[in-house]
C-alpha cells in the first residue's frame, strides 16, 4: 500500500502536507503518534471516508474493514443485531471479545470499553484484505486488551493491518512495524521493526 504526496487541509489548516508512506502487505503496521498529529485524518483517507485530498493512494485491495475511533454502532439494535447484519459468524467473534453474554443488550447500556470490543468484533467478522484500526483499545482493561490483541494477531494472519495508537505497549505488543509520526502537518519521524 502506498501513499504518495498526500495533502489535506481543513479550512486553511494543513493537517497533512506532501506525506508519503509505504505500508507492508500482510503485516501489522502501527502508526504511532500523539493525539491530534493527523493520524485519524490519514486513516480516514485510507479507508475512503475522506474523498477529497491531494496526492495518490495506491491500495492493493478494495476489501477494507475498519475499527472506528468512535464505535459507530446502531443504537436501535442490540449487540447481536449490530454484528449479525454484516456477518453470519457473529457468535465466534462476540465470544472472542467476551460479549457473547451481552448479545441482547443495546449499545446505550454498554460501557465505552464494551462498545469498543463490539466495534472490534464487527470489523474482524467481515471479509477483508486490509483492516484499519483507529485507536482500537480505548477504554478496554489490560487483561482483556492482551486477550483481544492476541485474537487480532491470530485472525489477521496474511492480512494487512494498520492501527493507530499513542500507547507504546500496545504498539510493541501488536505490531510488526512501528512508524513514528509527528505533526500537524503529519510527518514521519522514523520507523522500527519489532
Amino acid at each position: 500500500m502506498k501513499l504518495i504526496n498526500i495533502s489535506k487541509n481543513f479550512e486553511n489548516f494543513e493537517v497533512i502536507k506532501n506525506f508519503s508512506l509505504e505500508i507492508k502487505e500482510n503485516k501489522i503496521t502501527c502508526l504511532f503518534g500523539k493525539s491530534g498529529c493527523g493520524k485519524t485524518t490519514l486513516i480516514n483517507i485510507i479507508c475512503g471516508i475522506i474523498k477529497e485530498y491531494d496526492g495518490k493512494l495506491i491500495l492493493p485491495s478494495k476489501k477494507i474493514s475498519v475499527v472506528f475511533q468512535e464505535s459507530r454502532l446502531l443504537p436501535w439494535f442490540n449487540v447481536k443485531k449490530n454484528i449479525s447484519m454484516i456477518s453470519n459468524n457473529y457468535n465466534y467473534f462476540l465470544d472472542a471479545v467476551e460479549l457473547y453474554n451481552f448479545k441482547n443488550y443495546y449499545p446505550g447500556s454498554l460501557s465505552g470499553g464494551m462498545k469498543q470490543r463490539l466495534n472490534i468484533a464487527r470489523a474482524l467478522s467481515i471479509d477483508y484484505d486490509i483492516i484499519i484500526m483507529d485507536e482500537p483499545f480505548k477504554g478496554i482493561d489490560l487483561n482483556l486488551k492482551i486477550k483481544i490483541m492476541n485474537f487480532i494477531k491470530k485472525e489477521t494472519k496474511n492480512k494487512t493491518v494498520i492501527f493507530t495508537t499513542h500507547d507504546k505497549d500496545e504498539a510493541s505488543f501488536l505490531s510488526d512495524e512501528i512508524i513514528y509520526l509527528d505533526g500537524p502537518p503529519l510527518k514521519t519521524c522514523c520507523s522500527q521493526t519489532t
Partner: protein
Amino acid sequence: MWQIIYTIVNKDIFIASPLDVFKRFFELIKYSDFYRAIFFSFARIFCGFIFALIIGVSFAALSSFNKSIYTFFSPLVTIIKSVPAASIIMLVFIWLKSDFIPTFIAFLLVMPIFYINIYKGIFQTDKKLIEMSEIFRFSKFKKIKYIYIPSIMPYFVTAFSTGLGLAWKSGITAEILCSPIYSIGLNIKDAKIYLETTDLFLWTILIIIINLIFEKLSIKIIQMIFPYISDKIKKENSFETD
C-alpha cells in the same frame, strides 16, 4: 370537573350535562344514521390522511436525495402551510363536490407535516453511521432499512400523531362548512343551528375518542412493525453496566 362546571353554570344552552350527553349517546346509537355519519366522516378524513402520508413521505425522501425536487417542493409546502384553512375550504368548495372537500382539506393540511418531519429526519441521520454502512458495504436497501428508517421513525411518529389530530380538526371543519350528507360535521352544524348543546358536546367527545383510539392503535401497530422505536423494549432487554 365537567359536572362541577355544569352545576355552577346551570344553563343547558351553554354547558351540556354529562348525564344528558350520556343518555343522548344511548339514544343515538339506535339509529343507523349515527353509524353512517361516523363511518363516512372517518372514511373521508382517513383517506385524506393516508394520501398526505404517502405524498408527504415520498416527496420528503425524493427532496432529500434530489436538490431540484427540494427547490420545487419546499416553497410549495411553505405556502400551503401558511394559507388559512378556511380560505382553502372556500376555494375548494368551488372546485370539488362537498363529499370530497374534507378529504382534500385533510390531505392539504397534513401533507406538509409529513413532508417537513420526514425531510428533517432524513437530513439529521447520523453521517457517521452512513460512513460506517459504506465501509461495511451495506446495500442501498440495507442502508434504508437499518439506518434511515430507524433514524426517521421518531419524526414519523411525531408527524403521525400531530397530523392525525389536524386531519380530524380540519376535516370536521370542512364538513361543517360544506355539509356533506352523513357526516359528523353536518350533525355538529345542525346541533349549533338548533341550539342542541348536548349533541354538540356528544359529537365533539366522539371525535376525541375516535381520534384517540385510532392514534393509539396506529402507534401500537407502528411499534410492532418497528420495535426499535420503543424505548421500553430497549430497557426491558438491558441494564446499566457502568
